[in-house]
């Protein structure tokens, strides 16, 4: 392979990216070396097994990916603003919408949510860490290396261009002969390992690591939503693993699962992909529902309305999520009976979701509402998500779907649910739990600017797309003619997209601004909130709780505060040594070997993939022979830490 085949050449945009990647790397290395921070980076972050730090790293990675996916989105909008634009060529446009979709779902939405789950859930259930801290680090690093492998595709070798759904035969070897599709397969495969491990880890954590006094039906709603999400992950991700592996076999080893010849069945891919893909949609929405529940309850200063209904409706949604996948390809021609079945199951999902919407509204009813930034995101979610949901029911009608299918109507629909559901929740959760993570709040003034600009931009960007879809504009086209009459709405959408970009930049500036100027927290409870994570001091000690808290019902921390007001102070018990797990460098090294193996497979350099896999196995053996039992935090250290923290 020649060097100019290895590196992507010929496009000024790509050269610009090359330069900026090189500059960023050099800058990071320089800063770390100049301030002598390498050792700190390794011992405090890269080898950590602390769920709070892993959560923060997930969120940082997710924000970076949001930037990358957002740039992709703006490039698409730039191309589509005017008819017959020559800003991007067809192939480049295809690559961009493929990476945009894949990155936003797999490398932005999921890690952002999993990051918040990492930070918050153990604290909400009164645990000192997750069930398997080491595995948690493996989860993070395999996600990260999978994401990096996918991301380098646009400068090395070329990006995938068959859409994030990678339908065959387009994604097959004949029509996508380059390495791009291999990046998709291997990047997702490696990241998928991490997601599955997260699923197992948090399922067991939530079931077994709660403080003994917390019953299942007293868990905070975010913890409930996480628990149900983990169940979906455990049963959905193995399907993706198999689907990706089968396509990898097709492309690298000549098997015939999805080929057009020798008995292969292209539609099998669509089925397998969506048997994972639809539950995936709920993997990224249920934790969002959980966060909105917490935030709305906190800032309405009321207990969540209809707690049990909330839990059961999530269980029903999780069950139904595995029974609706065919609605992604009604037009495949599965026949009237099959389409009707999936049409009905799809519409059924609106019922439990509707129950949840009403529960949030009733929680707000007669509440003393505080309009913080986190609350604004949650309030904006409700009407916007309803628009997305109602258009979803429109799409669910199989006969009508023949009209909407593959148009911008669909694009508008899923952006309405994913952005106003998942992205709003990520922002709301970030503002809400930011003081728990970084010991200061994000600036509310900047936060509100960012909120209004982003939400206005979002609606300007995507609402017109419903009408573009009804006017017949197909999705995934790279340009259109002036006679199509789609220009004015596209201009509007681009304008909205730019506003969203500005809103995001203000958020990023807010992170910097608040780091510099926001007052440090003096209490662990800045919002007068209700659940146990707010009972920890600021900053949260690495062992989370000096004494395990007691949960006496819903909103355990609220009850504690009420009792304190009535003068019932909890008795002071002596501290006991706390057992904590040791940090380990094995997870990151193992994941680097996964990266090497994946990179080798992308280019079919088998020596390299074998080398990588041997490395993976070797690190597993090292781990198996490691009988490190962790360490105990001494009583003196706990006393010292508790004195320093403020409560």
């Amino acid at each position, binding site marked *: 392979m020649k060097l100019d085949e290895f590196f992507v050449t010929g496009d000024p945009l790509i050269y610009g990216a090359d330069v900026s990647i090189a500059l960023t790397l050099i800058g990071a290395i320089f800063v770390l070396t100049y301030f002598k921070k390498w050792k700190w980076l390794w011992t405090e972050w890269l080898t950590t097994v602390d769920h709070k730090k892993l959560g923060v790293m997930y969120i940082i990675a997710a924000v970076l990916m949001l930037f990358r996916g957002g740039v992709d989105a703006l490039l698409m909008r730039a191309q589509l603003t005017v008819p017959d634009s020559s800003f991007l060529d067809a192939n480049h446009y295809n690559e961009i919408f493929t990476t945009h979709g894949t990155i936003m779902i797999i490398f932005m939405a999921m890690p952002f949510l999993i990051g918040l789950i990492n930070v918050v859930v153990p604290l909400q259930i009164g645990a000192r860490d997750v069930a398997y801290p080491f595995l948690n680090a493996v989860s993070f690093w395999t996600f990260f290396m999978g994401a990096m492998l996918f991301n380098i595709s646009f400068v090395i070798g070329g990006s995938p261009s068959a859409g994030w759904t990678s339908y065959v035969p387009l994604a097959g070897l004949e029509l996508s002969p380059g390495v791009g599709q291999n990046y998709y397969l291997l990047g997702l495969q490696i990241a998928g390992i991490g997601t599955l491990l997260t699923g197992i880890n948090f399922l067991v954590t939530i079931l077994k690591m709660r403080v003994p006094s917390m019953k299942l039906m007293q868990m905070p709603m975010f913890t409930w939503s996480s628990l149900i999400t983990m169940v979906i992950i455990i049963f959905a991700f193995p*399907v993706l693993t198999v689907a990706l592996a089968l396509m990898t*076999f097709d492309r690298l080893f000549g098997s015939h699962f999805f080929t057009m010849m020798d008995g292969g069945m292209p539609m099998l891919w669509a089925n397998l992909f969506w048997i994972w893909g639809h539950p995936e949609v709920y993997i990224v929405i249920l934790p969002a529902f959980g966060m909105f529940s917490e935030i709305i309850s906190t800032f309405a200063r009321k207990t969540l309305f209809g707690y049990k209904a909330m839990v059961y409706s999530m269980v029903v949604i999780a069950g139904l999520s595995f029974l609706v996948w065919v609605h992604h390809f009604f037009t495949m021609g599965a026949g009237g009976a099959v389409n009707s079945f999936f049409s009905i199951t799809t519409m059924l999902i609106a019922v439990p979701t509707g129950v949840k919407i009403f529960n949030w509204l009733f929680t707000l009813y007669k509440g003393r509402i505080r309009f913080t930034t986190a609350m604004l995101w949650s309030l904006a979610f409700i009407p916007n998500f309803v628009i997305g949901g109602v258009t979803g029911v429109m799409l669910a009608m199989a006969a009508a779907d023949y009209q909407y299918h593959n148009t911008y109507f669909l694009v508008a629909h899923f952006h309405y649910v994913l952005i106003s559901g998942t992205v709003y929740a990520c922002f709301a959760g970030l503002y809400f739990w930011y003081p728990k993570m970084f010991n200061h709040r994000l600036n509310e003034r900047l936060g509100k600017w960012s909120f209004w600009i982003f939400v206005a931009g979002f609606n300007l960007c995507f609402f017109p797309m419903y009408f573009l879809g009804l006017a017949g504009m197909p999705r995934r086209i790279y340009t259109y003619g002036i006679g199509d009459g789609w220009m004015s709405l596209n201009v509007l959408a681009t304008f909205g997209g730019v506003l969203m970009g500005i809103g995001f930049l203000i958020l990023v500036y807010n992170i910097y601004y608040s780091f510099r100027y926001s007052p440090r927290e003096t209490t662990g409870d800045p919002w007068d909130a209700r659940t146990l994570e707010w009972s920890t001091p600021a900053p949260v000690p690495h062992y989370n709780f000096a004494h395990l808290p007691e949960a006496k019902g819903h909103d355990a921390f609220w009850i504690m505060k009420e009792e304190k007001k009535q003068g019932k102070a909890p008795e002071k018990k002596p501290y006991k040594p706390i057992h904590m797990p040791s940090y380990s460098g094995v997870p990151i090294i193992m994941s680097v070997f996964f990266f090497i193996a994946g990179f080798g497979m992308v280019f079919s350099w088998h020596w390299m993939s074998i080398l990588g896999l041997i490395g993976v196995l070797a690190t597993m053996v090292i781990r198996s022979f490691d009988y490190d039992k962790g360490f105990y935090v001494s009583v003196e250290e706990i006393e010292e830490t508790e004195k320093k923290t403020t409560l």
Partner: protein
Amino acid sequence: MESVEYSPNTPLEYQSETGRLNILGFWVFLGAEIALFSTLFATYLVLVGRTGGGPGPEELFELKGVLIETFLLLTSSFTCGLAIHYMRNHSLKGVFLWIGVTLALGLGFLGFEIYEFVHYIHEGAALTTSAYWSGFFVLVGTHGAHVTMGIAWISLILIQLKQRGLTPDTTRKVFISSLYWHFLDVVWIFIFTAVYLYGMVM
């Protein structure tokens, strides 16, 4: 939590918090494995008959080899159970003996399976022949790869048993690997039925 008193009947592997958590976690992992194999089975069954003009299973499957494989693997599951029985009775020697037998049977199974695969490829039915054979080799091969991993993993645990004897940590590992081994046995029963028996009567 570590200070809980255990009755003498509590097995060693359940005596530590880590032991209990890891065993539960592994059960959950097996749940994910069921989803994984279900997908492979579904794929295989969808592709049955799609031989693209190439050879079909009824021409190639031979009952004898498959029965030997089945017999070896099912017996290994029984001996694996015996190993756990001896472990519960604190007999390190018994554990070594029966895990040794289990591994030997597992290796025997693998040997016959590799022989079978080579035979099919020789007869013109490989991964690349048709969709049907792709499905066959990936389903049965994934099971075989699991057995291989299991043999390597359990061998490493044997070394740790040799170094450390029966402790809550080592017994936990033996117990978890035994769950894995039994699971592979269950999967094989489905393969035997859905692939071989069904393939021969097709």
